[in-house]
């Protein structure tokens, strides 16, 4: 197990290097820093302003190898690699603020939305899918699936706009926008975005989990359990749920690390100052340093999620061996 872990961690190194190279090519070579400077400084910026701006951020250095004066590694690429290898995420191009400080600031608001939405979404979709399995092949089951497909097909922005209009503007239950850390009543800012996230994601999950559980219900051990006199609820909640969870865990765990990264649309529309909002901001202002750092952190989290999934899989299902 330990050797496996080390090996997997070492695999990450070339992948991360690839990510660095790819993002560097994308943001320093394909998209030139001059253009980014224009985007940040505005259309009125002239040549001298742009040159000074590029110089102060090292964007006027050679791309890969320095063939002029100084060390050969005094280049934009080596600078980026050195930064990321030492987990120094640099400073934002647009505001000059350290990226690590911006990340730290955004994690809590993001988690306050994504964690409850994740937990609530998982619990609800498990409950509903079990209910549908419980009443399978009935009219309720049929309409349940139809509803699930319908909720899946609607884009999230529609939920957001509709939710803001109905719940916040028509019925006036919640603030239509905003976020304030104010103890327990912070919940009033979170309720609507969390509800929208849960509702928009629930359809797909219900359909999937229902399919997984239906497979299990047909298995031999269920018939055995029933024959032994287990009640309907016990069969579902103990036997079906437990065995179905093996497949579900692998799906769920991989998404865990991404909870930190927040959500783009929800945070943007509700003004939640999380990491998703930061990414949208970085893209609209062409803040390449911030985008680069986000891509890097995102890929780290992704790799970490994959590793976590494999480990959980092995723990949940003893038949699986890690080689």
């Amino acid at each position, binding site marked *: 197990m330990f050797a496996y872990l080390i090996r997997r961690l070492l695999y990450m190194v070339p992948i991360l290097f690839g990510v660095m190279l790819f993002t560097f090519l994308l943001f320093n070579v394909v998209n*030139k820093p001059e*253009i980014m400077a*224009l*985007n*940040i*400084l*505005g*259309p*009125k910026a*002239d*040549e*001298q*302003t742009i040159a*000074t*701006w590029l*110089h*102060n951020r090292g964007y006027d250095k050679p791309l890969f190898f320095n063939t002029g004066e100084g060390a050969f590694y005094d280049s934009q690429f080596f600078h980026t690699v050195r930064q990321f290898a030492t987990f120094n995420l640099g400073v934002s191009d*647009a*505001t*000059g*603020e350290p990226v690590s400080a*911006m990340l730290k*600031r955004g994690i809590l608001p993001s988690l306050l939305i994504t964690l409850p939405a994740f937990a609530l979404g998982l619990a609800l979709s498990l409950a509903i899918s079990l209910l549908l399995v*419980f*009443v399978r092949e009935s009219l*309720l089951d049929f309409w349940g699936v139809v509803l699930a497909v319908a909720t899946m097909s609607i884009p999230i922005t529609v939920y957001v*706009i509709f939710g*803001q209009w109905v719940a*916040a*503007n*028509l*019925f*006036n*239950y*919640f*603030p*239509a*926008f*905003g*976020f*304030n850390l104010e103890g*327990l*009543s912070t*919940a*009033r*800012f979170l*309720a609507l975005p969390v509800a929208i996230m849960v509702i928009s994601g629930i359809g797909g999950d219900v359909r999937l989990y229902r399919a997984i559980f239906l497979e299990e219900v047909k298995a031999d051990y*269920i018939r055995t359990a*029933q024959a032994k006199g287990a009640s*309907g609820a016990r069969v579902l909640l103990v036997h079906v749920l437990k065995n179905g969870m093996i497949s579900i865990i692998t799906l769920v765990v991989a998404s865990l690390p991404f909870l930190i990264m927040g959500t783009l649309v929800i945070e*943007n*529309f*509700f*003004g939640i*100052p999380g990491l998703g*909002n*930061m990414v949208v*901001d970085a893209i*609209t*202002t062409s803040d390449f340093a911030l985008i680069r750092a986000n891509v890097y952190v995102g890929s780290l989290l992704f790799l970490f999620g994959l590793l976590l999934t494999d480990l959980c899989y092995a723990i949940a299902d003893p038949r699986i061996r890690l080689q």
Partner: protein
Amino acid sequence: MNFPGTRPITPRATAPGFARCRWLVALLAALFLSGCENDPHPHALHKSRPDGSPWIVSYRNLGSDPRSLDPQVSYDTTGNVVVSQIYESLLQYNLFKTDPYELEPSLAEAMPRRIEHENGRVSYEFRLKRGIRFHDAPCFPDGKGREVTAHDFVYVFQRIADPKVECPVLSSLQEFVVGLREAFEEAQKTGSFDYDKPTGAITVVDDYTFQLHLLRPYPQMLYWMAMPFTAPVPREAVEYYHGKEGREQFRFRPVGAGPYQLDEWKRKRVIRLVRNPHYNATHFPTTGWPKEEEARFAPLAGAALPMIDEIQLSIIREAVPAWLLFRQGYLDRSGVSKDVFNTVITSGQNLSKKFEEQGISLHRDVDPTTYYLQFNMEDPVVGTNKKLRQAISMAYNQERANEIFRNGIDLKAEQLLPPGVVGYDPSFRNPYRVFNLQKAKELLSEAGYPGGIDPKTNRPLELTLDVIAMDSASRRRAEFDKAQIEQLRIVCKIEENTWPRFQEKQQRGLCQMNTGSGWHADYPDAENFFFLFYSKNFPPSGPNSSRFANAEFDALYEKMAMMENGPERAVIISKMNHLLVEECPVVFMGHPVIFSLSQPWVPRISSNAMLATGGGMKYQVIDAEERVEARHRLNQTQTWPLWTLAGVVALVVTIAIRHARRRNV
């Protein structure tokens, strides 16, 4: 009979789980009802002022966080809204005088004295008001803001020249302010700026008097002295807020001498400004308001500023939530976005009845901006053929474009200068901006393309129009532009560009014709527009992207730029205007009109466009009582949807349970 180990099956009155959930449900319901408070704003800092009168807050919104609150750096509208509250300049725009705009002293005691030197150079002598203090801040001894002196202006002009500060207007200012270019170049060479060495831009006469030295006569310098770029900043603050040891950077922690000081800036959420208790640089004007407003403004004459105690600027990027908050009374003002235009504005361009009844008022303000279709004057086809350009100008139906794409609200542009700018002539009619297809075709024949046919190839003339295409709306616009030009039976190819690619093409002169060009006034003077066509301003160092070069125009520009306003200057401006119209390097399209709404409790003070982005906020008054009443009325909670929802859930569960009773798993 009961078997051992099994429980008797007895019917139960309630569902098995409910007894356990009861408390949870009650708790959730209590939480929900207590949370039914939809005010998104943080609480005001105080309930009342020290004298017992109510503490008044203004609620506004910004589209994004400002990039920087350093007055020597900030150059965007968003930044300006905040910076112009915190920093005060030597001069300011008069609140009421808009045609033309007029400067008046702010931190300065009076308008500056102009001194002419024998070598052709010019200086301005400014005298400061006494007793003006910077905001209280920890960077000062005992935290008390010190007095603003002439030495602070020496420091400001040093900062402008410091490459590390990245002042975006340095390249303009160094053309006419003594010593800036040299100081910048030396700092570039040595890698750091020497703040102990004077730049030569300013000579301090005494603590309250200084002279600003210019390389040549340049009356527009006074407009620069009304911008935040030249507002005084305390050196102590810049050095104290260095971004280390838990201190913020100066750009995020501004310290100025303006009417408001920064209380907090929660990124992506809110910027909270609070009244500067020591502010006494300016007062409400005692004259100048329109006669019909006498009753409204006379009682305010000479009143202390600012009128409002706190400003909360919420950061709201999307238009939909901002509009919802305005409708709920949680924002004092709103723009009119495309999504809601048709519900808010009637076909006659008035406010629809529903909003009028709520006391909301609509404002229509001409933005001091001109946008146009641009020809590349270095292009061998359009650049060399004046009649061809004129023909295209006459074939372009601006009224129709305005109707389709701008809801008919924009002002048609007949000249380069927008209204309010010195030199704008409201009576001027551009002979080539009258839509006349017949005349346009005649001009095209005279241009050497009769019937649109290029005699060299015997086929229709082919032209390329570069556009910035980001969404379906801009593509529709491009199709319209193409159709306008093709009315002349010439072929117009559309080249779609991303914004970066478009910029690059402009810099390198690769477009033949393009839309998406225009200019927003930095200051309301003709020089700020005519410099767009001065031949020494070609890209990349200047903004003359039409690459217009005309010796007569250049000579007039050089003369006009150095002159004080007067009849002689007006003649030159008119000549330059006629020259541009005749040469037709661009097809003038429009001056945008901006529609905005304000709540009944925020009466409009002035329509001064130069103060619109922020400088006018210190004069604003608010009827807070009316707002409280309106918010209460607009935000009544409904309970029936909750009962409906509970009913649906109960129904589904009942069906499920009944279903389950009928069969086992």
